[in-house]
């Protein structure tokens, strides 16, 4: 028995957390999960408040935690748990305690990086300069000689050919190790390692190597973290499970609880014969969704691939429970978004649709990176872009970094205006300068931590005061037009030369771009407005009311809550929605599910479980039979032909 297992979580404790969280109550099902301190998994359906339940549990445990040098570890794939703690407990003592030593709450990558890979790299003489997949791979690719570049191009490979697939370094190239391209790429990767450049996955390979070779690490990890929670457990890859299991391998030292939803495992590699790690043993269930009502739960439970029994307990939009709609179009996709917009305007009040309330309307597709395709193509529409040509898939990536300084300045200005904290602008400008310097100069700036700090660290101590003053002067400049921007840039060059010895040169990074996000200027024109934020704005010609529709991929919307969601049919080896109609109709085929269909089901499940009030789908009319239409209609879908 581990000492912390004696911690008893009582209803009283849970009541206190409810008060702390404010207007929230945990039902018996959730209370049992909060109280449980055993090796067990938790299957939580979409919108069931899984992370909130976990955070409540953490808050109680942290208050009763008996050690000062051993902590709770919460691993996830996103920073959702951390953000939730910051939001709910940020200003409380217990929140601060959870977010600092000896506990760890963060992503799997940052865990293995902080506790295993970085200490190991440091002890073995590797510097740690940058850990970032995109940046590191492009840097490596640019350094290759023309033979290697040609090889990559001819074989249809991408920059990821320059990524190691294990440690000690090995490459996934189908050529001889003596081939000139192989040697060049290998040397380039080796050199990059020596200089401290790693991709996220490479850090995991290093971690694995370190764990296998330094036997003390796994033992120390388990002693340090006797209690391990894995959030979003369904998205953990085989490699990651393996890594976790090789560290937390002694059940007498630590205890593990995995939280997740087996139906939403969309980040796993679909074609690997990955064994199902979650839930892998006895599990408790949170079946009731607090996100949406029973009408949505009823429509999507059949497409859950692993576990069924979803119920919906949100009642606000009960009045539109019969408005879930399937739009059928011929070949003209341009009608889809306006039709969806009109439907939204008819289902929701202006107050519901107010973006600033936090909940937004979305249109999502499984495929979103493709270029625009020809409507005559039989695969049409292939991706999200075929529904709206202004769609830019880069923007919906969470790792999106602006490509010009002016974007950084604008982002900073908006953030500063919104929060009232000037430092947001300072930080944003610094972030831009840091990105520029790392890409274009030899300055050894740290990529981690606040950009402003890493710039200051690079200055001699007697210059920091002046640097601060000069940056301060930039704060009050206006950059509304091109002329103002070039004045701003002139001042910026003076700063760059004075403090970082960077001579003025031509670089697109400093160019003026139109402020595409500034919708206020052209709002009067009505109709459709394109923006670089992937927001489609529709104003009804009849009522004059308008609605914003955010376009995105299914993958990037995971974990989020929408007001309404439209799933756009896309093409990936086959049509995505029509392929899974049998499940949507609750008449699943008896035979084993194909891997691709499994992926489609999971994606569809994730997409349709985002909305609080309304779910819709859009597909080509000729891809669905009349029988299927009537089956869906019987289940509760409205069928609308455009």
């Amino acid at each position, binding site marked *: 028995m581990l000492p912390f297992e004696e911690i008893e979580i009582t209803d009283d404790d849970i009541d206190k957390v409810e008060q702390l969280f404010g207007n929230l109550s945990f039902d018996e099902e959730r209370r049992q999960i909060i109280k449980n301190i055993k090796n067990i998994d938790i299957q939580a359906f979409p919108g069931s408040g899984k992370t909130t339940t976990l955070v409540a549990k953490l808050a109680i445990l942290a208050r009763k935690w008996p050690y000062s040098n051993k902590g709770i570890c919460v691993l996830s794939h996103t920073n959702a748990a951390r953000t939730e703690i910051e939001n709910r407990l940020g200003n409380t003592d217990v929140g601060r305690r959870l977010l600092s030593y000896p506990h760890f709450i963060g992503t799997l990558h940052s865990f293995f990086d902080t506790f295993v890979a*970085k200490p190991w790299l440091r002890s073995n003489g590797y510097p740690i300069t940058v850990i970032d997949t995109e940046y590191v791979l492009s840097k490596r690719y640019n350094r290759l000689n023309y033979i290697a570049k040609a090889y990559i191009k001819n074989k249809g490979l991408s920059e990821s050919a320059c990524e190691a697939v294990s440690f000690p370094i090995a490459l996934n190239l189908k050529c001889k190790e003596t081939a000139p391209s192989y040697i060049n790429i290998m040397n380039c990767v080796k050199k990059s390692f020596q200089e401290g450049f790693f991709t996220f996955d490479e850090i995991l390979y290093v971690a694995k190597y370190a764990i296998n070779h330094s036997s003390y690490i796994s033992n120390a990890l388990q002693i340090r973290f006797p209690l391990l929670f894995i959030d979003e457990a369904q998205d953990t890859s085989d490699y990651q499970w393996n890594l976790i299991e090789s560290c937390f391998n002694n059940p007498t030292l630590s205890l593990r609880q995995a939280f997740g939803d087996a139906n939403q495992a969309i980040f796993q590699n679909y074609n690997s014969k990955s064994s199902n790690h979650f839930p892998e043993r006895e599990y408790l269930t949170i079946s009731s969704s607090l996100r949406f009502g029973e009408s949505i739960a009823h429509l999507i439970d059949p497409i859950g691939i692993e576990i069924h029994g979803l119920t919906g307990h949100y009642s606000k939009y009960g009045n539109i429970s019969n408005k879930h709609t399937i739009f059928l179009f011929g070949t003209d996709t341009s009608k889809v978004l306006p039709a969806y917009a009109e439907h939204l305007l008819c289902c929701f009040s202006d107050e519901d649709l107010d973006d600033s309330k936090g909940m937004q309307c979305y249109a999502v597709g499984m495929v979103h990176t493709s270029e625009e395709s020809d409507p005559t193509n039989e695969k049409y529409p292939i991706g999200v872009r075929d529904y709206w040509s202004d769609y830019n898939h880069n923007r919906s990536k969470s790792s999106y970094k602006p490509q010009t300084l002016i974007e950084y300045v604008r982002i900073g200005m908006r953030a500063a205006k919104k929060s009232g904290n000037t430092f947001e602008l300072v930080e944003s400008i610094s972030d831009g300068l840091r990105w520029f310097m790392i890409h274009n100069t030899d300055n050894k700036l740290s990529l981690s931590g606040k950009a402003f700090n890493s710039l200051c660290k690079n200055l001699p101590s007697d210059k920091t005061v002046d640097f601060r003053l000069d940056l301060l002067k930039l704060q009050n400049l206006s950059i509304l037009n091109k002329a103002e921007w070039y004045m701003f840039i002139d001042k910026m060059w003076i700063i760059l030369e004075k403090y970082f010895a960077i001579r003025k040169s031509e670089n697109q990074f400093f160019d003026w771009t139109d402020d595409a996000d500034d919708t206020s200027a052209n709002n009067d024109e009505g109709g459709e407005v394109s923006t670089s934020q992937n927001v489609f704005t529709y104003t009804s010609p009849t009522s004059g009311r308008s609605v914003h529709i955010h376009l995105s991929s299914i993958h990037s919307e995971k974990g989020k809550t929408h007001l309404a969601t439209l799933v756009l049919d896309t093409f990936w080896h086959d049509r995505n929605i029509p392929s899974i109609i049998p499940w949507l109709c609750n008449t699943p085929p008896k035979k084993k599910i194909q891997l691709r269909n499994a992926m489609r089901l999971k994606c569809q499940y994730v997409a349709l479980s985002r909305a609080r009030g309304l779910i819709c789908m859009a597909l080509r009319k000729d891809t669905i039979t009349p029988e299927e239409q009537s089956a869906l209609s019987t289940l509760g879908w409205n069928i609308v032909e455009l």
Partner: protein
Amino acid sequence: MYLQEVQIENFRCFGTLQTINLSKGLNVFVGQNDSGKTAIIDAIRIVMGTTDQSWYRIEPSDFYNENKDLEIRIRLKFSDLSENEQAAFLECLSSEIIDGKDTACLYIKWSCKYLLNFTPPRPSVSISTSVSGDGPSLSPEARELLRVTYLRPLRDSYSNMQAGRNSRLSQIIQGIPGIKDGISEYSDGIDLSTLSIAGIANLSNKLLANHPKLKKANEDIGTIMNSKMLLKGDGIDTRFEVTGTNASDDKMLISLLEKLDLDAHSNGSTGKIGLGTSNILSMACELLLNRNIGSSFLLIEEPEAHVHAQRQLRLIQSLQSEAEATGRNQQIIITTHSPLMASVVNLESVTIIKDAKAYSLRKGQTKLDNDDYIFLERYLDATKANLFFAKAVMIVEGPSEELFIPVVAKLLHKDFTEYGVSIVNVRGVGMRRFARIFQRVDESNTLEVKVACVTDRDVMPDCAPALCIKQDYSDKTKWPNVEDRNWRAESDFPTSCEKDAHIKEKCDKADGQYVKTFVSDHWTFEYDLAYSGLADELIEAIVTVAYVEKNKDAKLAEIKRKYMEHPTLESKAAYLYSFFTTRGISKAEVAQHLAFIIEKKYEHDIESLATKLPNYIKDAINYLI
């Protein structure tokens, strides 16, 4: 976990980077004043923090040469971390390969720079981890594991053990496990011994409030107030209350502990104890606190302060056993100027600090071999341990040299005491073992302490065996075979080549680095004195020692006459030496008288003394000074 290595740069007397290695258990820093002992202790405590939570402010004088442009850098390395410690420092660990296995260790890098653009300049400190210092900084909880208990030099141990706010004694006792156990609320019929300390405080508060005299006083005050000063119907009650009655149990515990004095009584007497005893008492208390589970670190500067010799021995032995106790992981680091303490600790625990460099006497660091350690542990006493504190050392075979040479040196204006030279008499055994203490395995970092080994050549003139051993031996053919006798004569080394080889052999046993052997020019110390020109003085000294007062003049004349009868300088000197061999006169006594005679005779005539002294003695003195 223990502190294995300290690196210091630009701190006080440490300019360029210096590495100091430490062992598990007890470490004793010895050395002259201003050699850097305290700088090392301070470097350790500044980086690790102290258990009394005291704050150290970096002053300009802490920078090497007071140069504030420099950056002070201190790096500590901890090894042998327990599993719990590895877990606690997980994100900061480094690894190194020991016996082919990756093993965890912890580096802490501390640096301080003066921010010169402020007036007065402010120190800015940063702490990080890992070999090169690019690791994350330590969290406060993890730093707690590293705190050292620090006993400063010239500490006021007496007041440490006295009551007062935040008294050290109260801090120590709060750290005792289970100090809060017991019942904290007194109720009737309860067994008083089951009360916790807070319970005792509660009980005493209650008793005070209900004391009859206090109660009466309270009532009287109430009566006066209500009947004479207030209006009818104001109805105000008074009550005595002990301060802190409503405080939490923890606060009550502390306030009660702060009232404690620790007093010692010797043999039933009372009153203030002596400085030495309170010093020992305070160390005993700190050891108690340091006994907690986990690793602990104790730094004591000059534990011998105010403590007399026998107690010093006892003290160092108990520190040693405390540091070596199994089941605990306690590292004790002390500095000392006491040869007595230095003489009883294991030689391996000793580190000589000289000119801001550390020279550990651990196996593998010195040229001493395993036998030498065993030998020296047994024979290193307080007088010999002097050598740890000396600027230069002369090692001699016996008491004659020990008594005579310093006197001669003083006459030659090279006073050993003035120059900080220690003379160590090894009584005929292990001279070279003592010398090897100063020889380092690492030839690039030698210990700059000049050591002169003064020894006899032990080759007698051919006439001597007959005079000093057996009369028969005047006939060389009667000498036993070379291998059957333990003495040598000049004719055993017929060529100069062989003579040189003999001397070289003697020197090679010890010479190297700053150790140099000085072999007598001929045979033994006394023989060489007589041979080189001090025969008259030697005769006088022999007579003084060997004969009673009334016979002295006659004997003196007789010996002088016999002396003159000997044909050669060799046989003359050998004749005098025979007094020690055949007559058994004490060499030490003779040496003492000889020194006395020479002091009187040559006080104002150094030049003629210099001509009469054997060369090897002059050379040895000149080598050291």
